[in-house]
């Protein structure tokens, strides 16, 4: 079988798997999509955090960049793992105790100001937006290879899938 056929098969199987899981866990959580409160085991949450963390950038680009940069590529390796030490020691336990849902919530309450909440919100949007832009480029590159189209067409396809 050709690479293209295999790609359709394997990508198809994994997508069906995700949809099934999403459907099954959707049925369980009737109280709404955003509810975070408590039921996820540390192990499952650790796995999900890892998937969340390993982005298109780290999957596709990082080894390539290290390959061209040599030692200097360590910035990505150290930076994207060492930050978890800061997160685990300085932020995660306390924000969990605080218990509200978003970062602007913490900033708004801790600094007793709607303006602070707004600034935090603006920062959150700028940061997440920059991050999403990089991801969509990554999806575009994968599509461009596996459907044998131009990268830009791949980006447009990626946008459609992400929105769906």
């Amino acid at each position, binding site marked *: 079988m050709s690479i293209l056929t295999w790609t359709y098969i394997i990508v198809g199987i994994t997508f069906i798997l995700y949809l099934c899981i999403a459907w099954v866990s959707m049925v369980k959580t009737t109280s709404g999509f955003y509810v975070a409160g408590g039921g996820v085991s540390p192990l499952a949450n650790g796995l999900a955090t890892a998937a969340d963390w390993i982005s298109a950038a780290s999957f596709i680009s990082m080894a390539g960049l290290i390959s061209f940069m040599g030692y200097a590529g360590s910035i990505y390796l*150290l930076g994207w793992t060492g930050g978890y030490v800061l997160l685990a*020691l300085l932020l995660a336990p306390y924000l969990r105790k605080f218990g509200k849902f978003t970062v602007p919530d913490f900033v708004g309450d801790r600094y007793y100001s709607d303006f602070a909440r707004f600034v935090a919100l603006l920062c959150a949007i700028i940061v997440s937006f920059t991050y999403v832009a990089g991801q969509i480029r990554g999806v575009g590159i994968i599509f461009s290879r596996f459907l044998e189209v131009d990268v830009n067409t791949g980006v447009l396809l990626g946008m459609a899938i992400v929105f769906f």
Partner: protein
Amino acid sequence: MKKDLTGYWKKNLSLLITLLSVWAFVSFGLSILFVEPLNAIRIAGFPVGFWFAQQGAIYVFVILIFVYYFRMKKIDEDFDVQE
């Protein structure tokens, strides 16, 4: 009963400082500041500084978080503030 929260917080801070010192020493010390002298030493095919920057530091990070988890569990119980 009023808990000794000041004592608890001090214990917590001193653990944080110890662990973060190790974190900084491995990542910024061994992997960046002292990478050149360390690269003169070799273990198998790896120059040691290069190995810390691309492998060793990451292993140490994982260990640090688990040490933190177990130490804090103990401290929480000692001061009776666990959940």
